[in-house]
């Protein structure tokens, strides 16, 4: 009996990869996380891979006027509370600033591998 490594899980094909993210769910208490945690922060049991998405509600958002990846253009970030659990930081691809409480839909990843979302 051996544990599936995080790397093995990441290679599992998923046709809707763009509209979901791989997070974790605790095998004992069912707590969810958007991050690849190995043990549950609440009960310390192992966490298993789980997919979340595609939609969620904006908990907070900000338009950032700092250089990122060599580009001087402002970019928008939001903490998105996905409907099936987990709070995820996403890059928002939209003209207007997303309001707190508005709905976004996951839509892919940036070159750096960070998840992105658009107004739902």
């Amino acid at each position, binding site marked *: 009996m051996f544990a599936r490594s995080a790397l093995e899980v990441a290679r599992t094909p998923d046709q809707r990869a763009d509209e979901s993210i791989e997070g974790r769910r605790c095998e004992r208490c069912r*707590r*969810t*996380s*958007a*991050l*690849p*945690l190995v043990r549950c*922060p*609440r009960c310390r049991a192992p966490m298993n891979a789980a997919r979340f998405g595609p939609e969620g509600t904006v*908990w*907070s*958002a*900000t*338009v*950032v*006027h*700092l*250089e*990122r*990846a060599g580009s001087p253009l402002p*970019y928008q*970030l939001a*903490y998105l*509370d*996905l409907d099936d*659990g*987990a*709070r995820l*930081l*996403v*890059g928002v691809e939209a003209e207007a*600033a997303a*309001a*707190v*409480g508005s709905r976004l839909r996951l839509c892919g990843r*940036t070159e*750096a*591998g*960070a*998840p992105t979302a658009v107004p739902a």
Partner: protein
Amino acid sequence: MTARFAIEGVGHSPFGKAGERTLASLAEGAVWDALGDAEVDSVDAIYAGSVFAAPGAAQRLLSAIGLGGIPVVTIENACASGTSALHEAGEAVRTGRYERVLALGFEQLTSRFDGPIAPEPSDAEGRAGLALPALYAMAASRYLHEGRVSREQLAAVSVKNRGNGAANPRAFLRDPVSAEQVCASRPIAEPLRLLDCCPLSDGVAAAVVTARGGSRAVRVLASEHRAGGAWDHESERVWGYGLVEETARATYEQAGISPADLDLAEVHDAFTIGEIVSIEALGIAAEGEGGAFVQAGRADLDGECAVNPSGGLLSRGHPLGATGLAQVAEVVWQLRGEAGARQLADARLGVVETMGGGVAGTDGNACIVMVLA
């Protein structure tokens, strides 16, 4: 009541762009001021705090200023690195491990970063571009949405602290600003603007501690260190709030005081929202009323609790590892009646709060709260 440990001497360099001055030159001033203040010329051990120092940086610095050959440990705890060094130094003398210890905080940022500190690429949120102004902006944006703070109240923090900093010869930014200037300054991470943010700085600060202290010593009644738990969809508060609140609760219990007893507070105003969240979590203002507290003048030098009489991080600057010890120096000077133009009329009990983060999904990497009398 029995103190945890005693601060015999403090020192802190001017904060700002070091320019031609080397870090060793800044350290010489801060450290030898602290030693002189304590009326000693040696220590048994050194605890140093710095976030971005290269390996061996503390030893390199100390060897250059006549303090080589003394055991040193360097601690990284984000913005709480300097107070972490003091917390460990205090514990070392309290338990009798050493008799006299130097706590040293140092940071050189202006030659390392062009603009703000670059987010950590190995962090999931850092990778997405969540620089520290953006992290704090998330709290500000949420607070604005919930009606817990107004744009004017955020500006009031900056106006107050820049005004206080005008009387601090060691502060980086010493010209006062108006609310109009704050609100018109260029956006950094909305709703935070340039004048809502502390400036990148270089600096060194130090403190000499012993278990009991002499006649001029300031007593640390309590010192607590906590780390943040998970901060995610299950969190009801903004980032960092829970950590500061829990650390403060433990510190007040240890000291046998309540926040209403505090005459002054040096808190983590890396961004204007930071001061508001801090004073609520510290119990200086009621939850959701930190902005109103500042706006009403209750945090002014002549208010019921002077918050950041030094000018805070917003005015003094924020060389990460040095900040906590500079906050401690201010409280020590205030308690001793040595704060010059910033001197409060009746300073008997003060609190220092530092909280730092940068790990995704975590409610702050570390928080240290200390009560001094």
